[in-house]
C-alpha cells in the first residue's frame, strides 16, 4: 500500500467520523449527567435537513450549519420537556423523538421539494484542504477541536465535576447546590446542537443532498461509540474514527471490487462491528450510576 492511499483513507475516515463524533460528544455529556438520549438519530436527521434547507435557501452553507444547530436544539428541547420535565422514561421519549424526526423531516422535505422529485441544489461546506474524497472541511476540523475542549470542560472545570456528580449521585450534586434538572436540560440541549452539527456534516459535508432516513443508524452507532469510548471525549474520538474507518473501508473495498462479496454484506460491517464492540466491552464497562433515572429536587 502506498502512503498516498493510506493518507486518503485516513482523511476520508476523519470526514466520515465527524457525524459520529459530534453526536457522541454531546451524548458523553448527556450520559455523564444521567440522561440517555436514544433520539440522537432523529436529532441528526433534523440537523441534516435543516442544513440543506438553510444552505439552499440562503446560498450560504454556514447559515445552513446554524439552522441545523437551531432545529436540532428545538427538537431536543422537546426531549428535555418530556424526559426531564415530565419525568417520562428516557428510552421511550428518545424513541418517540426518532419517530417524530423521521416523519417530520420526510413531511417537510417532500413539501419543500414538491413531492421529493425535485433535487434542490445546495452548496456544501467548502473544503479547507484536499479535494474529492479526501477533502477535509471546517466542520470536521471543528469536531476534532471540540474533543480537547470537551475533555477540559469535563475533567478540568467545576462544571465538569458537577456534571459527573449529577450522573452518578444526583443527590450529592443537589446538596452541593447544583440544580440537577437544569444541568440535565443543558446537556440535552447541547447534545441537540451537536447532533445538528453532526447532521449538517452529513448532508452538506459528506453528501450534498438530503434523503429520507439518511442518517441510517449513525445516531445509534454514536450511542455505541459513547460506550466504547468509556464516556470520555478522547475515547469517543478513537471509537468514532474506528467506526468511520470501517465505513470507509467497506465503501472503498466495494468500489475497488476487491472481493467477490456482495455489497449488502459490506454495509453490514459497521453494525456488526458495533455489536462485537459492545459484546467485547460488555459487562466490563460501568455506565454512570444514575443513567436513565429521573430526579426530584426538593
Amino acid at each position, binding site marked *: 500500500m502506498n502512503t498516498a492511499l493510506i493518507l486518503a483513507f485516513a482523511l476520508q475516515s476523519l470526514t466520515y467520523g465527524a457525524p459520529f463524533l459530534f453526536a457522541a460528544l454531546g451524548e458523553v455529556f448527556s450520559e455523564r449527567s444521567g440522561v440517555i438520549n*436514544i433520539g440522537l438519530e432523529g436529532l441528526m436527521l433534523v440537523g441534516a435537513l435543516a442544513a440543506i434547507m438553510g444552505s439552499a435557501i440562503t446560498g450560504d452553507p454556514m447559515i445552513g450549519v446554524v439552522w441545523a444547530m437551531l432545529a436540532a436544539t428545538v427538537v431536543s428541547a*422537546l426531549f428535555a420537556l*418530556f424526559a426531564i420535565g*415530565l*419525568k*417520562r422514561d428516557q*428510552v*421511550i*421519549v428518545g*424513541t*418517540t*423523538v426518532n*419517530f*417524530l424526526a*423521521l*416523519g*417530520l423531516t*420526510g*413531511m*417537510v422535505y*417532500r*413539501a419543500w421539494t*414538491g*413531492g*421529493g422529485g425535485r433535487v434542490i441544489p445546495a452548496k456544501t461546506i467548502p473544503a479547507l484542504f484536499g479535494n474529492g474524497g479526501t477533502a477535509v472541511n471546517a466542520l470536521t476540523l471543528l469536531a476534532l477541536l471540540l474533543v480537547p475542549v470537551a475533555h477540559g470542560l469535563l475533567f478540568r472545570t467545576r462544571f465538569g465535576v458537577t456534571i459527573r456528580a449529577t450522573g452518578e449521585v444526583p443527590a450529592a450534586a443537589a446538596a452541593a447546590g447544583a440544580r440537577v434538572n437544569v444541568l440535565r436540560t443543558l446537556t440535552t440541549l447541547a447534545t441537540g446542537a451537536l447532533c445538528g452539527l453532526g447532521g449538517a456534516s452529513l448532508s452538506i459535508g459528506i453528501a450534498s443532498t438530503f434523503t*429520507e432516513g439518511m442518517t*441510517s*443508524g449513525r445516531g*445509534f*452507532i454514536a*450511542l*455505541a461509540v459513547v*460506550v466504547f469510548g468509556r464516556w470520555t471525549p478522547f475515547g469517543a474520538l478513537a471509537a468514532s474514527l474506528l467506526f468511520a474507518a470501517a465505513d470507509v473501508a467497506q465503501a472503498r473495498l466495494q468500489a475497488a471490487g476487491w472481493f467477490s462479496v*456482495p455489497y*449488502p*454484506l459490506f*454495509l*453490514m460491517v459497521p*453494525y*456488526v462491528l*458495533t*455489536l462485537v464492540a*459492545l*459484546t467485547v466491552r*460488555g*459487562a466490563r*464497562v460501568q455506565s454512570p450510576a444514575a443513567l436513565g433515572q429521573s430526579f426530584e429536587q426538593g
Partner: protein
Amino acid sequence: MNARSAAETLRSAGLLAVCLSGGLFALALVILLVGASPLSVAAALWQGAFGSPYNAADTLVQTVPLLLTGLAVALSFRCQLFNIGAEGQLLVGAMAATWAGTSPLPAPLLLPMALLAGAGAGALWSGIAGLLRLYRGVQEVLSSLLLNFVAIQMLAWMVRGPLQEAEKAFPQSDPLLIPARLSLLIPGTRLHSGAVLALLLAVVVWAYLRWTVGGFALRVVGAGPAAAEAAGIPVRRTMIETFLLSGALSGLAGAIQVTGVLYRLSEGFSPGYGYTAIAVALIANLSPLSVIPSALFFGALTTGGPAVQQSIPGVSSVVVQVLQAVALFSLLAYARVRERQSQTAGGVR
C-alpha cells in the same frame, strides 16, 4: 366494576381524550404550516382506510403485522426489556419463511413449516439480544436496534444471493407455491386467514399473561426483578423466554406477510411495522387485548397515508409517522398527569 372505578375509568378516558386532542391540535398546526387543511387530511385518511370494502380489508391486512409485532413489544416491555428489534425479527422471519416455503418439502408441510421457520428465526434473532444482555450486560435497546440494521442488509443480500429467484433477473425470491400460501378470507380482497391467527394470538398472549405461571413470572420480573429473584422466580430464564416469545411473534408476523400477502420475498416490504409496533404497544398500555384496537388504528393510518398523499398535494404519507409521534407524546403527557393525580390523591393509609 363498581361505581367508583367506573367513574375513575370515565375520568381517565376523558383525560386521555384531552391529551390526544392537544396532540392532534399540534399536528393540525404542522399541517397548516405545510399549507394544507387538517380536515381534508383527516377525511382523506378515513376514505383511504375505510372508504370501500376493499380499502377496509386492506386496513385489516396492514393491521395483522402491527398486531403481532405490537404484541411482541408489549410482552417484552411488560418484562421491562426494551427490545425494539421487532423490525429485524420480522425481516428474518420473512426470510426464513421464504426459505422454508420455497423448499422441496411435501406440499402439506410447506405452510406450517414456513410459519414455524419464521417464528423460530425471529426468536433466534431476538435471542441474540437476550444472550448479549444476560451474559455480556449489553443494553437490549442498542443491540436489538443494531440487529435491525443487520437484518435489513441481510435481506438485501438474501434476495440477491441465496434466496434470489431462479431467473436471477430481479432482487426477489421465487414465488411461493399455492400450498405454501395462507388462504384468503374474503374473495376479491387481500384479507387472508393470517388475520384470524393474529387475533387468536392476541387472546392467547392475554391469557398467558393473566392466567399462567409463566406469564405471572414475566410480569413480576418486569415489576420488580429483585422481588422476583427473592421469591424464587428464575429471573434470567424468564427474561430469555420473554426475548424468545417476543421474537417469535415478530418473526411470525414476517412469515405471515410472506405467506399471506406478498407470496415472495423482496426488499423494503416492511414500511417499519416493527417500529410502529412500539407506538402500538405503548398506546395499548402494554395490554394484549388493547393492542387489537391500537393496531387497527395504526393499520388504518398506514392504509390511509398514501391516499392523503394522492389527494392533497404537499402532504405526504409520512404524516402518519408524525401522527404516531404525536399520539405517543400525548400518551406520555397523559401518563404524567395520571401519576400526578394519584400522588395528590394519596394512597390508602
